[in-house]
């Protein structure tokens, strides 16, 4: 393949810069969240996060090297490989704090469910690109549902409710933006709404309780409810300008659960206040808007859906995580994209950004 000068002239700058900005602030906050006053020596979490950031940049550039349309023919292969990895987790996986999500690959552990999100976007984009036009009926919607349900069930068993929620939301987004008739989606929602009350009495009391506390954490004042309160206090106590880097007291006293992953935004908002939180919010909004713009300018349906899917991952993860830490949404274990500690997630998101850049830069290629 000859190098094409048009790749340079059409290089997508904005998207990767936004992503790197968020990742950088994220790594800094990981440092603060895992910082112990008085502790000497390097900060292992922050350093590892920076290493993954570098690996993620490499992955992003690697993804640019080939035309994204090549993926259109290998979507199912990629999907199958990733599904196999997800299914291997229960057998070969490593247990960390009660759930089995990681596969050990030599010195590093990876989380196949993170890669699965990207794989699902690719396979769904391929599916909708191959089906003509708009106003698709249930027949076109069944395959995406099945393709989503398989990994979702395996991930639910890990258990990782948060990732399942994101996968579901991303799939719904792609169904809508992929052209499935809204009427069919409405029917689907109606079926779920009818089935739920029928299943409810058959659940065990503890299962019912778990669902209820999930929806309303106040029912568990010593567990999830307490976490939400502490998170809200952390965010709120930042006031307008924040307590300053490394000075978040809620965080320093280990009061927040999972302060370097799921609740990292509380740490950030406590230290940087309303102003800092708004800046971060603006960066995420810009990322999402840029992703949507690139999608609408793409030259083919596959590109459109690819860009939309990746953008949907970023959007939903950010919204669910921010909603959770500010007490707007139920507590599910979801990380803040680009921001939370976690190598697999960062690597996949940056590779996803690479895909969107790829779509953007090749929009004039025919």
């Amino acid at each position: 393949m000859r190098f094409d000068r048009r790749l340079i002239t059409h290089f997508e700058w904005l998207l990767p810069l936004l992503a790197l900005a968020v990742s950088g602030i994220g790594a800094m906050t990981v440092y603060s969240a895992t910082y112990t006053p008085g502790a000497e020596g390097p900060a292992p979490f922050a350093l590892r996060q920076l290493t993954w950031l570098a690996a993620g940049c490499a992955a992003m550039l690697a993804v640019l090297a080939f035309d994204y349309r090549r993926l259109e023919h290998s979507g199912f292969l990629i999907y199958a490989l990733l599904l196999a990895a997800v299914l291997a987790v229960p057998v070969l996986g490593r247990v960390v704090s009660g759930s089995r999500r990681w596969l050990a690959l030599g010195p590093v552990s990876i989380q196949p469910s993170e890669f699965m999100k990207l794989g699902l976007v690719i396979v769904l984009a391929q599916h909708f690109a191959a089906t003509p036009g708009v106003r698709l009926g249930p027949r076109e919607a069944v395959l995406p549902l099945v393709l989503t349900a398989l990994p979702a069930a395996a991930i639910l068993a890990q258990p990782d409710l948060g990732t399942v929620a994101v996968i579901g939301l991303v799939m719904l987004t792609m169904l809508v933006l992929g052209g499935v008739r809204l009427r069919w989606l409405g029917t689907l929602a109606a079926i779920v709404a009818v089935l739920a009350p029928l299943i409810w009495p058959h659940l065990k009391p503890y299962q019912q309780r778990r669902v209820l506390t999930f929806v309303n954490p106040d029912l568990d004042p010593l567990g999830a409810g307490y976490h939400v309160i502490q998170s809200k206090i952390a965010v709120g106590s930042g006031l307008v300008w924040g307590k300053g880097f490394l000075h978040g007291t809620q965080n320093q006293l280990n009061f927040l659960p999972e302060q370097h992953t799921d609740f990292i935004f509380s740490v950030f908002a406590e230290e940087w206040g309303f102003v800092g939180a708004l800046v971060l919010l603006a960066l995420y909004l810009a990322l999402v808007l840029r992703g949507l713009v690139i999608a609408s300018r793409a030259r083919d349906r596959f590109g459109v859906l690819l860009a939309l899917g990746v953008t949907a991952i970023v959007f939903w993860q950010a919204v669910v995580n921010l909603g959770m830490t500010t007490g707007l949404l139920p507590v599910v274990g979801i990380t803040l994209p680009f921001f939370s500690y976690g190598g697999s997630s960062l690597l996949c998101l940056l590779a996803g950004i690479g895909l969107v850049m790829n779509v953007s830069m090749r929009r004039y290629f025919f």
Partner: protein
Amino acid sequence: MASRHVHVAPREVPAELQLRTATALAVAFVVFALIGARLWYLQVARGPEMRSLSENNRIRIVRVPAARGVVYDRHGEILIDNRPSFDVVFVPEDARDRRHVLRKLAGFLGEEEPRLHQTAHAPSKRPPYQGIVLRRDVDWDGVVALETHQLDLPGVSLQVGPRRYYPFGPLAAHLLGYVGEISISELADGTNGYRPGDLLGKAGLEKAWDAELRGEAGGQQVEVDALGRRVRVLEEEHDKPGGTLTLTLDRDLQETAERALGEADGALVALDPRNGEILAMVSHPAYDPNVFARGVRREEWRALVQDRKRPLNNRAVQGQFPPGSTFKVAVATGALEEGVVTPFTSVSCSGGIPYGNHFFRCWRKGGHGTMNIHSAVVQSCDVFFYQIGQRLGVDGIAEYARRLGLGLPTGIALEHEKGGTIPDTRWKRRRFNQPWFGGETLSVAIGQGYVTATPLQMANLAATLANGGTRYRPRYVKRVEAPDGSLREIEPDVVGEAHLKKSTIAQIQSAMRDVVMTDSGTGKKARVAGVTIAGKTGTSQVVAMGEDRKRSNLGAEATRDHAWFIAFAPVEAPEIAIGCIVEHAGAGGGAVAAPVVQQVLERYFTRDQGPAPPPAAQEVKVAAPVGSDREAHAVRPTAHHPL
């Protein structure tokens, strides 16, 4: 690379989808605006309030430990209870000057200051602002002192919590066990749901039934002031008490057995041969579990652990002793089953037999004269068993010992149960990589040499012979009542059959009966008026055989023989089986152990229907077991009721 097949013409994104994408854009805007508004609300509108709550961590969780389940004996008497205790809780983060506070506290409590420091700074996985229990069960003076000086003691508070209480002190201590604060290593090995500071069963049934007994801690979400004093309770979740256990243990019989064993070291297990229910389990020396409930002190713990008599060990299930002549019933069973002897086979005992270059003595120097299997069991003639042991061979002996439940743990739900040793040629090969020597069979035939068994195994062996060959898993819990009132009956558990001929059982039983009931028997001191009792005495040598004893430099007491007695009664319809060992008794089983068992049997058969059930018994629905006991007494032949 330009024109690889492209499905859809470029830019041909339908207008409707363009519209949907534009809508998505608008949705993203709105959602982020909502989050922004939420941030404004939390950080600006309610910010100052949140800031003040964040200082000193004003909203805390105070855990309220659950009351552990109560444990009753079979007649509804309370064996383990809870009573309220005032615990001193210290939150180091609330105290500016910790040394100063602890010094003051030590003064009020009459406690040594270093000990408080030690407790306060012991390594733990305590989350910040979680209180440390410095001292459990403070007396009333202490409570008053702390209440009046609260302002001088920032970070110190009193908390009322349930404390474990064992009303009978050391009674059945080893079976009941004790509780203690969970250790870091116990927290680490995935004990689900436990948190630092939780109490956990550490031994006995407290450990084995911890999941049933522990309940679920509750807690309060409280708001505190800058000194750590609670301002108000925001949310509360009530604790759920643990489940209740009704044991098969008979408190009255247990007490009789404890008293009968007295100061002597040893163990006694009484169980029901019809179902494996433990009626009494004694292990001496014992300890007082109340010491652990109030928090064992370091010196007390060290004393218990370093005591050479090992009072923490449950000898009934962990002590492995050579069973001595009590083992002869297993050898006799094998000899009869295999046809090695008939009831009429006779052997002449002249006080010993030579084997190789060794002379194996009978315990009676002058010899027993002509013996058959019946009289050899009754008079415990060693020479007879040397002979038939050789005919049966060590592997034959081992086979029948195992059928009667020796050589493997019984499977009782108690920690660290031992299985004893039943040697055979394979075992010797594996263990020592040596062939079996014929002379060793002679030692094995009289329950010496490598043979060991636990008192529980020997009681279970008596029970198996009593009930005709069924091995039950010994169990001590009859019923579990969950906090929601649901009952779970623990059913008898048959673990195996000995597969013995009726004639063999009858002959062994009749021989064991005459051990007690005839004047030539070695166990006549176990007699109880009006009851036919079967038994077998045993005297086991502590230091291997003969000469070794003189060479050993153990203390005089440590080299004395153990006295054994196993029994079951009434022979016609057995309802109690007993295994008993008195360690280092210095005299034979008939002289020392049989009288101990006699007291237990006498209590069992002469009291009416056990002690009058206390009021609690009605509450616990025990109609069935009490009733069945009565029936059993009624069924017993009238001859046994001379009253």
